Structure formats: structure tokens, C-alpha cells
């Protein structure tokens, strides 16, 4: 039988340019570590079966099977995964909103989940100091707010979860991007023998829409070249006509052109089939409005996917934690189209990498979902 462990993660994922640095293989053992956004194997391991391989979102996976095991069958859609409803929300609390990238919905939901005891600990993206993203574990609603800006560089969040699962927390919530959510889905559905008992501690996944993330070292190199030692206080890519990334620094705002910025996108991100974080209870992104981006700059779009997601959303409405606004007509269709575009480009990139039009490396060509995306079913 072919070995599925550490060596295969290195060969098939890392050396094949598929790794996103999600952290699924980190903190399971002393061999994989994440440093400045890159997942690295420190020493060779000669096992023939390993959790690193089993949990990696870039090793073989049948998405249909995963979806069926984690969600209600009649909620499943090809375009957006499990779908109970689309909402437009923002945090009711102005201070949360002001500290956030967009509407502050994620922060508000995590605070609520902690306050209501739905979870007793949260794994969130940590500080963006020097463009190094570190996941953090927090266990009180007041701590969540300080982690509320978009990071653009993937923190190894799942690695932090792996650590949290060994700890005292009984009910853990995670804020995750799609590759991380997919890793957690694989962990939940098929945990290794030593994790089976702990996996029930993972209660809540709040997903983030994600198109891509930066490769930390490439971004650091670019920013170093452009800005030298100037301290960076924030980053945003405003969906405007400027086509640039705005970098806030101690000396004011600097715009870096998108064509330069795009060279820093992590290699692994092109091979992601999921834009809306389908393996979450509830997933959140920036809002779009037919009148233009700036109109809804302070709002989020939210997809509710699971019963728990629905409970949390209803609670947020009842408690006035979130403000709601009617979703403009056509927004769902736009989201579906954008999601399908990502799925098709993912399959195209994978086929290009494998050199065969029906070989998608880690995605099974027999997976009914893949067949439907390809228009074969």
C-alpha cells in the first residue's frame, strides 16, 4: 500500500507548490512547524501513515463525501456548498465595526459565541506584526476584538487548533479561511486514533471568504523593497478602480500597484476550489452592492450553512449584536458566479499542473461535485 504520511506531504504538497500554510500538519508532532507563514518539516519522518497527510487540505479528498457527512443533504448546492441563507450584516457595536476591516460581523459573532457559552475558547488570526501572522487562542469575548483586521497572510490556524485540542478548552470555535476549514472537515470526518476523542471539542467554525493570501516571505521582500524599515499599521485592497493595495504606514498611506502585489500571492492559493469557506457553520465576506463597493464598505455578506450557524445568527439578531440589511437582488447570483469561477480556475490550474485534463491531483475526478462543476453530470 502506498504510504500516506510525512514524506508524501513534503513531496506531493510542499514540493508540488500546493501548500497554503494552513497549519493542519502543525503541532500534531515535533516534525512540522510553521514559521513566518511557511510550513516546514524540521526532521525526516519515516512513518507510512500520518495525520499530517490525512488532515492536509491538499491531499486526496472527496468533497461530496465530506459535505454529506457534515451538512444536511437538502442544504447542499454546487456553487456555495451547504446554504441556509444569505444575509447582509454589520456589528451593532460601533467600536467593533471601527476596528474591523469591513462590518465587524466575525468579531461580533465570536464574541457572542463566547459570551453565550456556545464556545469557551476561540482560535483566531493573531497579530500582523511585521507581516507575520500568528494564530492565537483566546477564551473571553473581550479579547476577540484585538484580532479583528484582515491579515492577507494565512496564519497556521489549524496548528493552533491542534494545540487547543490537547488543552483544557472543551468547546472550541475557530475563525478559518477555506483551506483551513477543509482541513478541519477532514479531521472531523476521519480523525486519527489519537484525535477521535478530542475532535468533538471543535464546536464552531466561522469561515472567511477568501480569494487568495500572500506568501509571507514574498510580501515581506516586496514591502521591504518599497518601504524600507517604515512600520506598517494596516493593509487593505479596496475594491475600487485604483487597482492597488493600500498600505497604511507610520508615514501615511502608500499605494502599491496590484500587478506587483499579485506576484506575492502564495503558490498554493491558485489550487483552492472554495471561495466562500464551505466547510464552516457560518461564513463571512465583504459586502458587494450593485451601486458600487464603497456603498456597503462597512457591511458583510454572510452565508449560514449549518443548524448551529443558524442558531448563532438568530441569537445575534435577537440580541441586537448584528445590524441587518436587505440583501440586494442579484447578490446571490453574483456570489455563485464568483464561486464557480474560482472552482473552474482551480480545476484548470490542477489539470495544468498534472498535465492531464482529468487529473486534479488531490481532488477526485470521480467526485460527483467535481463532475458537476465540469459539466459532466
Amino acid at each position, binding site marked *: 500500500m502506498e504510504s500516506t*504520511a510525512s514524506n508524501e506531504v513534503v513531496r506531493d504538497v510542499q514540493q508540488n507548490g500546493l501548500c497554503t500554510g494552513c497549519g493542519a500538519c502543525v503541532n*500534531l*508532532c*515535533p*516534525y512540522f*512547524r510553521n*514559521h513566518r507563514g*511557511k510550513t*516546514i*518539516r*524540521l*526532521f*525526516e*519522518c*519515516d*512513518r507510512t*501513515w*500520518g*495525520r499530517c497527510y490525512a488532515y492536509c487540505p491538499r491531499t486526496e479528498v472527496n468533497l461530496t463525501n465530506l459535505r454529506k457527512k457534515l451538512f444536511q443533504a437538502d442544504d447542499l448546492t454546487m456553487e456555495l456548498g451547504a446554504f441556509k441563507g444569505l444575509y447582509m450584516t454589520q456589528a451593532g457595536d460601533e467600536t467593533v465595526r471601527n476596528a474591523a476591516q469591513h462590518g465587524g460581523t466575525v468579531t461580533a459573532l465570536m464574541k457572542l459565541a463566547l459570551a453565550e457559552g456556545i464556545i469557551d475558547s476561540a482560535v483566531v488570526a493573531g497579530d500582523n506584526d511585521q507581516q507575520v501572522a500568528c494564530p492565537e487562542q483566546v477564551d473571553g469575548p473581550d479579547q476577540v476584538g484585538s484580532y479583528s483586521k484582515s491579515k492577507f497572510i494565512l496564519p497556521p490556524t489549524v496548528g493552533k487548533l491542534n494545540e487547543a485540542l490537547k488543552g483544557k478548552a472543551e468547546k472550541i470555535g475557530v475563525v478559518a479561511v477555506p483551506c483551513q476549514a477543509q482541513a478541519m472537515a477532514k479531521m472531523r470526518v476521519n480523525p*486519527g486514533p*489519537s484525535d477521535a476523542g478530542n475532535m468533538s471539542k471543535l464546536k464552531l467554525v466561522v469561515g472567511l471568504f477568501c480569494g487568495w493570501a500572500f506568501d509571507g*516571505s514574498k510580501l515581506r521582500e516586496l514591502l521591504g523593497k518599497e518601504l524600507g524599515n517604515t512600520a506598517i499599521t494596516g493593509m487593505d485592497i479596496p475594491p475600487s478602480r485604483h487597482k492597488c493595495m493600500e498600505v497604511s504606514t507610520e508615514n501615511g498611506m502608500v499605494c502599491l500597484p496590484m500587478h506587483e502585489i499579485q506576484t506575492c500571492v502564495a503558490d498554493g492559493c491558485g489550487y483552492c476550489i472554495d471561495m466562500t469557506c464551505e466547510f464552516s457553520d457560518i461564513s463571512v465576506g465583504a459586502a458587494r452592492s450593485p451601486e458600487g463597493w464603497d456603498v456597503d464598505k462597512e457591511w458583510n455578506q454572510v452565508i449560514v450553512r449549518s443548524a448551529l450557524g443558524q442558531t448563532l445568527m438568530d441569537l445575534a439578531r435577537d440580541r441586537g449584536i448584528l445590524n441587518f440589511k436587505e440583501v440586494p437582488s442579484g447578490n446571490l447570483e453574483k456570489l455563485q458566479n464568483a464561486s464557480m469561477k474560482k472552482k473552474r480556475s482551480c480545476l484548470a490550474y490542477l489539470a495544468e499542473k498534472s498535465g492531464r485534463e482529468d487529473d486534479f491531483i488531490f481532488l477526485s475526478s470521480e467526485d460527483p461535485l467535481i463532475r458537476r462543476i465540469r459539466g459532466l453530470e
Partner: protein
Amino acid sequence: MTTLNTGRKGEKMLLMGNEAIARGALEAGVNVVTGYPGTPSSEIIDRLSKADRERNLYVEWSVNEKVATEVAAAGSFAGLRSMAVMKMMGVNVASDFLMHLVMTGTRGGLVLVSAEDPGAISSLTEGESRYYSKFLEFPLLEPGGFQEAKDMTKWAFELSEKINNIVMLRTVTRISHGSGNVVLGELPETSPRAHFEFNGTILDEQTGPILTVPGPFAVNLHARQQNKLQAAANLFEDCPFNTYEGPENPELLIITSSVCHLYCIEAVELVDAPDRVGILKLGTTWPLPAKFLKKHMQRTERILIIEEVLPFLEENIQVLACQLGAEFAAKKFHGKGDGTMDKVGELNPTLVAGALSRVLDLAMETVSVDYSENINKQAVDNAPDRMLTFCPGCPHRASFWSIKRVLELNNQQGFVCGDIGCYGMGMLPCGFETVKTVHSMGSGTGLASGFGKLGQFGMDQKVLSVCGDSTFFHTVMPALANAIHHRADITLVVLDNSGTAMTGFQPHPGLTIKASGTELPALDIPSICRAMGAKVQVVNPFDVENAEKVLLKTIEDPDGVKVVVMRQICALSPEKKSKKQFEIQVDENVCIGEECGCNRLCTRVFKCPGLVWDGEKKTSKIDAVLCVGCGVCHSICPSGAIQRKEIA
């Protein structure tokens, strides 16, 4: 008990070759002895350092071999008998000074002892120093046994004073580390008065200033030096250390020197050809005693030259044969030139006997194929399967563990330029194969200084060098100055284990003890590096978490030269030996062994010999005999199964 410095004239002692040399120096009334440790030379200084009070010696472990030779030369210039001791690579270090010294000459007898290592048993090269004697034009003596090691050393001082120049005494591992019976000579009473006389003329060797000066004066000195060499050659004609044994007119004349003399005696017996073969042993191998050689060479037609490694004797004798005329040039020479002997590796009686049997076309009784195959099989089957590794509790294992991890985390194909010491084994699995270059002492940091300037050509690998505390003083400091001055982006890791550990804990300027054990002021490596302009951190490699954190931050700092001193005393050092800091135990119930999540990290990767894999229980355990209780395995165990308890 009789010791080297109490043994009386006529007493017979079993002495190691190096002890015999030390005794010979004492019998010569040596006053100043210097050296730098290096196998197989180190015991000479060690033994003399124990005699320093009783025999009125000044003994020091110098910072390096060049300085050792200079310090010894100062003794000679002030009229004292002096000796500098080193291994063969040390002669390379000393050679710059030597080239000047041989021109100015010496006053008190000055002997350079070079202990060499054919076969590179404990050296990184087989390089030898015999050629220096020809190249730098000074006499070379090579003892061919243990008694001779003592007697020749004493004689070397007398020779040096007769010709007023330095004399090299060359020994090899099998003389230095072998032992034999030695009849002792008299220990003289010396009452030296050191004074450097410089009021005479510049041309007066005994009273003038001792200088090398450019131009015609240098040529003049050179001619004087060559006259001294000729004087030595004349003395060698009647030297008792040049011997011949065998038939008057041998069918084959062996010419040999050093330990090979003993091999030749045994080999002639092995092939049972004492009537056919004569052995000419040279104790004075440069300059050659031409008349003595001529006398014996004219009594044979065939000459076999037996010496280790390069054909120094062979080629010099062939040149001499040509100079002696057509009759001698036509002799049949066997040796390295005709492929009878190899130009690499040590010799032994069997190899010499093999050569004799080929040259004389004699049958030689060899071991049967079955027997030698069986021997090999037994060796393979019964020897434990283990690689060269660091000792249990060695600080270097912990240091390289952190170095390996930070190089991997940094993810820029970083590497380590190694140096000379136990830590050279960083190239092996015990050092996690982090060391990628090893050359001479100090050259790791010199190479790093160069690598660290290649950024302008696109090199983006992290460059580290490692050196020990003794090596730091020996030759790393100039390389470090170069790197700092030129702003090379490198990290020097000083693996400070408080002594010259590999050669037996000889002191160095960073310690407060001198060769004889008295207190001396210590130089502080971190302060030196800071004063030179490097950013310096000091960490304890046994505090694995902190060491890794500091190292990672340091190597990712792109600004100039960084120094991390990883300080932890050697596990074998006399201060630490058999003192455990922790009692270590493996909790079998917690150890996850081969499971996912560990996969035997401690016994498969970290591999301290104090940890053993219990194949039946599938857990690790501590080998209580080997474990020195450093506690590092406790820090690296991912499941907390390796528990440590501080010993009060």
C-alpha cells in the same frame, strides 16, 4: 613511584613515545616548552606541565602553533633550551614564522616537535611536515623506536646549539602513542639565566639583534643558513641514529626511517630473508648523510625504500644517487615510484612483508581466504550497529539540534561552515548534518566571511560558522575581524564547552588555568566579540527553547556579523564528569513510541546514546549507565514522557 621527572639514570621505564620525548627534553635540560594541543602530540606538553616546578620549566599551552614557536624561540634567543610541540597541521600554522627563524638562527637549543598522523586516524588530512625541512632548510630527525625517541630528543638540542638553528624532531602516531622500554639518562641540574643580548653587530649570531632584513643581507643570511645545514649533514655521517643491519652485500637494501624501521625488521622475519635483505635506518632524514648512504648503496644493486605517505626519502635518495654518478643512478629502486608501495595511508609489517615478497619473488604465508572472510563476518555481526556520535550529554548535540531547527525554519537552505573540534561531527547525523564545510582551524569563519558577501550575486542562503572556544582564540579571531569589517551577513556560533575538549581539556586563553594548573586571567569571548563590533548573545544550549528562539532571531537579522555563544561545559570535563544534574526517567505509559505524533523522535532523530529504544515494549528508556543527566531529552520529548528530577 618513579615518574618522568624523578626516574634516575639507568632505570628502565615503560614509556609512551611522547613520554620518551618529554623525558629526553628533561634530560637535555629544557627550560621553555610551548605547544598547541593536537593528536598525537598532546601528551608531551601534558607530561612536562606536571614537571614544571621540580624541573624549573616554563610550560604553556599557547594560543596557536605559530605563537607557540615564537614563544619557544624567545626562550632560545634569551639563551635557554626551548621546545615547541604540535601536530603536523600546526607546522603549517607556524611555517610563516619558521621561514624567518631559520634565517636568523637560534641561540639556546631550539627543537620543534611535530607529531604526525599517517593514515589520518585523528586528523583531517595526511599532510606531513617532512618537506618543510627541505623547503625551509633545517635538519630533520626521526626516531625509529622508543629509546631513540628519548635519546634523539636530547641530541636534537645539542645539534641545534652546534649549528645555531632550529631542529625538527618528527614522530608519528605509532611512536607517540605506542609504548616501549626506555633506559633513562641523567637529569641535569640547570640554573638558567635568561637574557637577550643585542649589543653586538647585526651579523653576530650570538650577541647582535636577531633580525631578518630585505636585500643583500637576506641573501647573506640565507647563505649562512645553508652552511649550517651542510654542517648538520657532516655531523649526520657519523650519527649513531643512522644504522645498518644485515648482510655485507645484501641482495636488497631497505632504506627506511621512523616507525617503519620496526615494520621492516618484522617483515624481513616474516618472509624469512635475513640473508638476502639489509635494513638501513636513517634517523637523520634531512639533510641526507651522503657518504653513509653511498657506502651502503654501493654494496647492493636493488634498493627498496619504505616510508609512509609521500616519497620524501625515496626521491631525495634518488637525487643523491644521480649526484653520486652513473653507477648509483643505475640501481634498481623500488618504492612508491615503481608502484611497490602506496603513497597514502599507514604501513604495517604485513604491508612491508607483502612488498618484500613481491620484490624478492618470495612466497609469503598469508591468512586463508576463509579465515579472513570469517573475521570480517564476525566483526560485522558482532559489532553494534552505531555511527560516530557525540557523547551522551554532549552540549554540541543540543546546540546542533537548535541550529538544525532554525535553519529549517528559516527555510533558506542555510548551512554551517565547520571547524576543528568534536563539533566537526556536525556533518554527521549526530549533528543533524548541518555542517557542510570543514577545513583547517579558523577557516570555517573565514569561509563564512566570504559566503556572507555573496548576496550581491544573488546568494540568499543563511550562513553560519561554528568554532570551539579554543579554536576561537587559535585562528577564528582574524577571520571574525574580517567578517565584521566587511559587514558579512553571517552568524558565528561559538560552541564554548570550556576547554580544548577533543584533545583532553587543555586550557586556552578563555580559561583561568594554565598548563600547570595555576590561575591566569581569562579572556571573555563575548566581550571580545562585542568590542570587535559584533552583536553578541550568550545562551545555554541545554535551554533548548530559548537557544532556538535566540538563534532564529539572530540568523534572521540581516545586519552584519552576529555571534551566539552557546555555553555549556563538556560532559566529559573533569569538573562535570559523573555529576548528574537530573535523574531522567521515561514514563512508559506516556511514551507514544512509534505512534503518529512522535515516531521515536528521541531515539531515531535526537539519538543521544543515553536513550535506548525498547523494541519489545515499543517505548524509549534511559540507559542509566550512559545517561549523564543533562535533561535535554526531557525538553525535546513531545509527549512529556521523559521526566527529569533535579538532583539536589
